[in-house]
């Protein structure tokens, strides 16, 4: 029984999401307004998509610090293609996703085949991608890029924003991949024990590379939403977003050692962060304080994850002691 509780990785993040929802919901009267909920959905969407990619990389035993910068570069690229090169929208979208995949391929090649630690590779990429972003349009933002782009982000069906469907769609795909495909199984195997994976006939390098490519693809989709949301591209978009994405994965219970976690949990991780941010905004808390709060939440999540087993046994020990005391009382009577 204890085993089941400690190994279920979705319960924690769901509880966290519910707790912060209740906290924010009961301390303000504006949280449950339709507009605010829609706002949260829009806020969470980009981080959630990046979170999918970060989770896959973490599952496979790596870490990706570059998706924020990939978003920066890709919004500039998309804006350039639409505004200056007059690409048709579908072509520009496909091209953006493909370039996203290439950025991931770059990270993956360096990490898997040149054996540069993922942390180093992607920190370098963080700098490189952002540098490239500044080469477009002399480093200036590109505004009002296309009127056909914004509906992709803002339109709704029966009052539900499109972005909700994107997020659900991508998480469903990712969950399917992790639970029902060879690739997903092999990814977790590589992250869990690369040595054993090699001896089990898995092409470890290829799997690591693929995890980064998929993260690049998710950055591509994320950048499209980003550009659609603001109808612009800017070398200042996406700054720090990689940390939100990793935080979403970590709050979702993905082990940074790799090989453990549940991709759906990342969605609840992203929701938790976003709702906390939303609550702080509703309470008009300064952004500097918000950074501190988010950081503390990440720490708490990792702490709980690390000590989950110990805490669970402590709780059950306490339970046993209580029942024993009661039995003792009965005996004395």
């Amino acid at each position, binding site marked *: 029984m204890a*085993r*089941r509780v400690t*190994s279920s990785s979705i319960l924690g993040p769901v509880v966290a999401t519910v707790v912060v929802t209740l906290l924010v919901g009961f301390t303000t009267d504006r949280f449950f307004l339709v507009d605010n909920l829609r706002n949260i959905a829009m806020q969470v969407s980009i981080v959630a998509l990046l979170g999918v990619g970060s989770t896959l990389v973490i599952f496979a035993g790596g870490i990706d610090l570059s998706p924020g910068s990939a978003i920066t570069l890709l919004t500039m690229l998309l804006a350039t293609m639409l505004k200056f090169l007059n690409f048709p929208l579908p072509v520009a979208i496909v091209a953006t996703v493909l370039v996203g995949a290439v950025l991931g391929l770059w990270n993956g090649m360096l990490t898997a085949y040149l054996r540069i630690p993922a942390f180093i590779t992607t920190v370098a990429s963080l700098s490189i991608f952002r540098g490239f972003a500044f080469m477009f349009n002399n480093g200036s933002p590109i505004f009002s890029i296309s009127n056909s782009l914004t509906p992709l982000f803002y339109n709704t069906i029966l009052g539900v924003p499109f972005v909700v469907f994107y997020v659900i769609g991508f998480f469903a795909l990712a969950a399917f991949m992790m*639970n*029902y*495909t*060879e*690739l997903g*199984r*092999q990814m*977790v*195997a590589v992250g*869990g*024990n690369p*040595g*054993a*994976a*090699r*001896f*089990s*006939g*898995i*092409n470890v390098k290829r799997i690591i590379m693929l995890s980064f490519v998929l993260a690049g693809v998710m950055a591509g989709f994320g950048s499209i939403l980003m550009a659609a949301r603001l109808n612009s591209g800017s070398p200042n978009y996406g700054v720090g977003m990689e940390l939100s994405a990793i935080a979403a994965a970590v709050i979702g219970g993905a082990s940074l050692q790799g*090989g*453990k976690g549940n991709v759906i949990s990342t969605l609840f991780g992203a929701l938790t962060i976003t709702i906390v941010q939303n609550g702080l905004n509703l309470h008009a808390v300064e952004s500097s304080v918000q950074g501190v709060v988010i950081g503390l939440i990440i720490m708490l999540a990792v702490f709980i994850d690390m000590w989950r087993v110990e805490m669970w046994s402590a709780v059950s020990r306490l339970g046993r002691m209580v029942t024993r005391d009661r039995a003792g009382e009965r005996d004395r009577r």
Partner: protein
Amino acid sequence: MTAGMKALWEIESLTKYFPGVKAIDGIDLKIYPGEVHGLLGENGSGKSTLVKCLSGVHQPTSGRMYLRQRPTIVHDPLTARSLGVATIYQELSLVPIMTVSENIFLGHLPRRRGARIVVDWAEVHRRSSLLLERLGITLDPVAIVAELSVAEQQLVEIAKALSLEASLLIMDEPTASLGMDEVRRLHELVRNLARQGCAVIYISHRLDEVVDLVDTVTVMKDGRIVASEPRARIDLARIVSLMIGGDFRSHYPKERNLTTDVLLDVRGIRTARSAAGASFILHRGEVFGLAGLIGTGRTAIAHALFGIDRVAGGSVRSYTGRDGGRMSLFRSPREAIAHGVALLTEDRKATGLFMAFTGVHNISIAKLARISRLGVLNLGKEQELAREHFEKLRITPAASDSSVQYLSGGNQQKIIIARWIFSEADVFILDEPTQGIDVGAKVEVYNLINALTREGKGVILISSDFEELLAISDTIGIVRDGEIVEVKNAEDMDKQDLVEKVFVRRTV
């Protein structure tokens, strides 16, 4: 020599239970100063549990221990240390990037007088030189530990254990990974220590090695002492029979399923790690045992066949169902698995199990193609097939939905064997398959080997346990420097032959 002398440690009716097992059962033992006390017994006979009570790792369930006639309780390893008990386990606990003397004084480096936070390096080196000299160890105190041989590292370990005053040194199978010369050096050191008045408990399961060294031999079996005698009265033959109880072969279930159908024809296979080139033929139903010391290239041969190491030369023809005499030098484990070769590695944790996976997922991982179509897994079929393997191999049902880290070593090992049966392999390379599992599980592994050969599979068995190797193999290949120098029928060899072949010529 012990007459009239007072015992350093006296153990009285010591018993230790683990859940469901009586590990040691009413042990009485006296250890005298200056005595080398050999503790013999098979794996699982209780030797390790006994010394772990002395070194504070385990708390005895009942019984008493006296240090110099005073009742003593050893609460933990730290207490043991302060009571003068130094223990050296098989696994080394050195920091590889540090020097010999840094390792020796790790945790209690001498400090400068007047500036306590500054390490007095001159003093460190002076004292470690002195210590090494006293122990008769010729090692450079400033050598980096990682650059030393395993044997030398073991000497450092001993020096480290003795850097604090010790009246009792416990050595748990210190020679398991050493060659003859190195063993001789270690024995000199042990005798030297005994002359200086230190008592030594020397655990081994290699009788031949211990008999010249020790003053007293104590033989354990099933948690009890079956004999404890001074060297003068040691009767080798009697002790052997006490230890293993007659003909060891009768303790092993062995079916002979050897056929004349060639399964694998290996000729002069070479890798960068084993230059000489190994040749042998594996038949259907055969267990081909590779005998040799650690580092002689047994594992290198396995890795070459499995596509782990790049093969530099030679040829392999396989006659598995898929390949009729096809050349099969595999460039990756993936290729090897696809052609029906399986490798159970010696290190279950590092290269075997996925600890976070359930048993089911651990079984299917090497051949997901069996349960998938176009890359999509059929989880129902996976469960069903895995269940069949659970039943067939008598793996605990708990493995089906909990992660394997909670399982016993025996169940874990059976899961890896199940993985390779699941992969539909024809050639099973088993590298130390019974390492670190209990006796009952070992027998199950032997029975599985029988089941494999009965179905016409071929097994290449690598084992450092000579009895197991002799009893389970049909054919034995002696490995030296990556070359198979001799192939013999296992039934025509006894243990003495094998020990001589493996050890003796190495030192010539």
